[in-house]
């Protein structure tokens, strides 16, 4: 069994208004020098395949076709045993 860990973020070229709002709140908090706040999602799921290669390929399909919308989002996928 493998564990797939997926981070999904808005693509760099897309303005992230939530990130901007949080960035503003950080400066109000009084912590200086914080910039480029981007809000994203974290998804994890377990998946069983005979090899890590097959896990990766199936997990990538899930990311590409469902978890992330490639028009506006990027994803990064990490696969670990367990």
């Amino acid at each position, binding site marked *: 069994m493998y564990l797939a860990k997926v981070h999904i973020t808005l693509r760099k070229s*897309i303005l992230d208004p939530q990130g901007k709002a949080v960035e503003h709140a950080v400066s109000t908090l009084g912590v200086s020098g914080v910039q480029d706040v981007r809000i994203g999602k974290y998804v994890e799921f377990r998946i069983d395949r005979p090899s890590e290669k097959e896990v990766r390929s199936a997990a990538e399909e899930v990311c590409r076709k*469902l978890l992330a919308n490639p028009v506006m989002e990027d994803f990064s996928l990490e696969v670990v045993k367990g």
Partner: protein
Amino acid sequence: MKVGIVVFPGSNCDHDAYYAFKTLLGQEAVFLWHKDHDLKGCDAIILPGGFSYGDYLRCGAIARFSPIMNEVIPFANDGGTVIGICNGFQVLVEAGLLPGVLLRNSSLRFVCRYIRVRVENNSTRFTNRCAEGEILRVPVAHGDGNYLTDPATLRRLEEKNQILFRYCDTSGKLTEESNPNGSLANIAGIMNEAGNVMGMMPHPERASDPLLGHTDGRKILESMINSFLEPAYEPVLSTHQSGR
């Protein structure tokens, strides 16, 4: 015309659409449950507004995998008339039936109010009852209506006259203030290149009953009916008012 209104878990404008088509406009209307595998011989399919699957993951992303969509997608690809309103528009872009995406409103606020749109192309099965450049007053109610697409797609949408509605002010000018959600080029509604699939964020079905004071939206619904009927459809407003 027989209209099928898809009901996803979380749809909440399905009855508004049913009422508008059936009671106000005298058409045959049926609900299509998301688990159905049959479009029941409908001439047109409505994907209504609401919060399908609680807007989990992304608006419209889960609804796109509902069993009924396995029927709606081929129906659309074969030239069948499909209209997505609000959440229905989000489902259509997630399903790849329309280009682009609908992002969080640039204000980060849920916007629920009347806005104005300008009719950009009135030679379509969704706008043939409107005049070119006509200004319609219709309500919006959404948190994720900020339309975005890449520059090449925007150019193609403009060249092929696929942009049907743009947010405008009372004089028809496309201003930033009149844009409720930050949409690219003030886009409020688009259709596919073939002209049979249309998505829009405003709610025409909620501006169709004279009792509620605004009836601009019914021009869009009447356009759809009109495109199915020969000779041209005549509005049935007066006869149906007495029957309610």
